[in-house]
């Protein structure tokens, strides 16, 4: 079982990097969600403004 | 068919005239390449018995990085003078522009090599009359120019222009560099053709492949 430290290191790196990438995607998704919400609100506002003007 | 060659030559000749009048490109690249040779000699403390191993590499590093600096200029000069749009308005196939520019950059880099290589051979006490080396340089320069011209067109339109050309160019031409260095070493040592043939074939294959690919792909780079 010598060198098992290296084995552990390799698999940890693989797991960490893949997980890191997934986390990055997750964060991007949250950002996008926030933008969509803002856009939605903006759209609703302009609709109500349009209705007021009528 | 005749018209195509005429147009290519027209673009090429325009660049040549500009360069002959201003001489900005060739001199600066020349000095740079020579400086590289000198710095590398000092850095590696070349002794007589090390020449075989290191000399080939030193020459090609000097030519490669000199070339990179040069390729930056190919389309930069068009962009600076806002001539790129004018060039684009010409009713020519896009690949004509590529080949015109390619002819120019090939000639420039060859001109630089013609001066740098003899200086290199003298500095390292190598035989000067080496026609096989000339062949290798010509073939390698075609490859450099093919890739460099294409990427120059890409780089001028993005930020960090100069660095991006190097970043794009250098990984792609690794095969040419490896083959050129490995082909040059036996030539400098006076070894027979056999040692060089395979490397030459690789370089020729690279040249053909990249000339074809770049020609096909160039229109996508310059479309607006």
């Amino acid at each position, binding site marked *: 079982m010598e060198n098992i430290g290296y084995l552990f290191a390799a698999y940890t790196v693989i797991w960490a990097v893949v997980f890191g990438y997934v986390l990055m995607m997750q964060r991007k998704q949250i950002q996008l969600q926030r933008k969509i919400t803002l856009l939605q609100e903006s759209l609703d506002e302009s609709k109500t403004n349009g209705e007021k003007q009528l | 068919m005749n018209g195509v060659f005429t147009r290519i030559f027209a673009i090429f000749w325009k660049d040549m005239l500009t360069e002959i009048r201003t001489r900005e490109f060739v001199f600066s690249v020349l000095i740079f390449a020579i400086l590289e040779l000198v710095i590398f000699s000092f850095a590696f403390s070349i002794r007589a018995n090390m020449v075989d191993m290191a000399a080939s590499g030193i020459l090609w590093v000097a030519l490669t990085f000199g070339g990179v600096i040069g390729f930056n200029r190919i389309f930069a000069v068009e962009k600076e003078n806002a001539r790129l749009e004018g060039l684009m308005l010409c009713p020519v196939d896009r690949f004509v522009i590529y080949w015109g520019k390619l002819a120019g950059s090939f000639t420039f880099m060859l001109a630089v090599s013609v001066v740098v290589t003899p200086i290199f051979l003298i500095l390292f006490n190598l035989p000067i009359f080496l026609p096989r080396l000339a062949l290798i340089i010509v073939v390698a320069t075609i490859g450099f120019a093919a890739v460099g011209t294409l990427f120059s067109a890409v780089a001028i339109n993005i930020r960090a222009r100069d660095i991006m050309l190097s*970043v794009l160019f250098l990984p792609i031409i690794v*095969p040419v560099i490896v083959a050129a260095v490995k082909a040059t070493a036996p030539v400098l040592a006076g070894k027979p053709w056999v040692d060089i043939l395979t490397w030459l074939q690789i370089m020729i294959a690279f040249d053909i492949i990249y000339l074809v*690919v770049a020609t096909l*792909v160039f229109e996508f780079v310059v479309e607006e």
Partner: protein
Amino acid sequence: MDNKRILRNNVLLGLGLVLMVAALYMVFVYVPTEKNMGVVQRIFYFHVPIAWVSLLAFFITFTFSILYLWKREMKWDSFACASAEIGIVFTTLVLITGPIWAKPVWGIWWTWDARLSTSLVLWLIYVAYLLVRSFATDPARGARYGAVIGIVGFIDVPLVFLTVNLWRTQHPATIIFEGGLTAPMLLTLVVCIAAFTALYMLLLIHSANLKIMDADVKHLKSMLQEE
């Protein structure tokens, strides 16, 4: 159409999970320890599939780049870019796990053999791909230039490999993978390749969808601001 997509994604997720668990079992429990290299050799079972999948990823980028230049639909570009990103992630893993494996077994971190060198050049080419995209002055140009790099870069890969391989065979390589693969080793390897291919597809779909959504949101935003 949407329900079909959700179903397909869930099936892929389930399949990927099963394959990954199976792969882990086979690597750590099923396959016997290699006699020469010991336990460390088990890195091989993830290292090689990751390398293969990274090549697959760049091939997908190559294909979708051509598709994009031909059809000019944003979704092809999103897939091309997502695939390149994942390819870089996987290539990075290859470049890290390779030395971790090599050091205890052969005593050196790095060697300029054909496969490692090609992986390194591959990494450099596709990092350049991402840089070109991010340095472009507008997204449409970035997509177009990226597609060009995606095509030109991939064609270079076999050239690099062949050239470095020839170079190295002239000087006998210090690293030789002796012995073939026994049946259990081969089976383990195949399962791992399947597992990582499934992982790649999952990541690709997710990442590409994010990019497509991002482009849509930007488009909507600009439309809204025009009012």
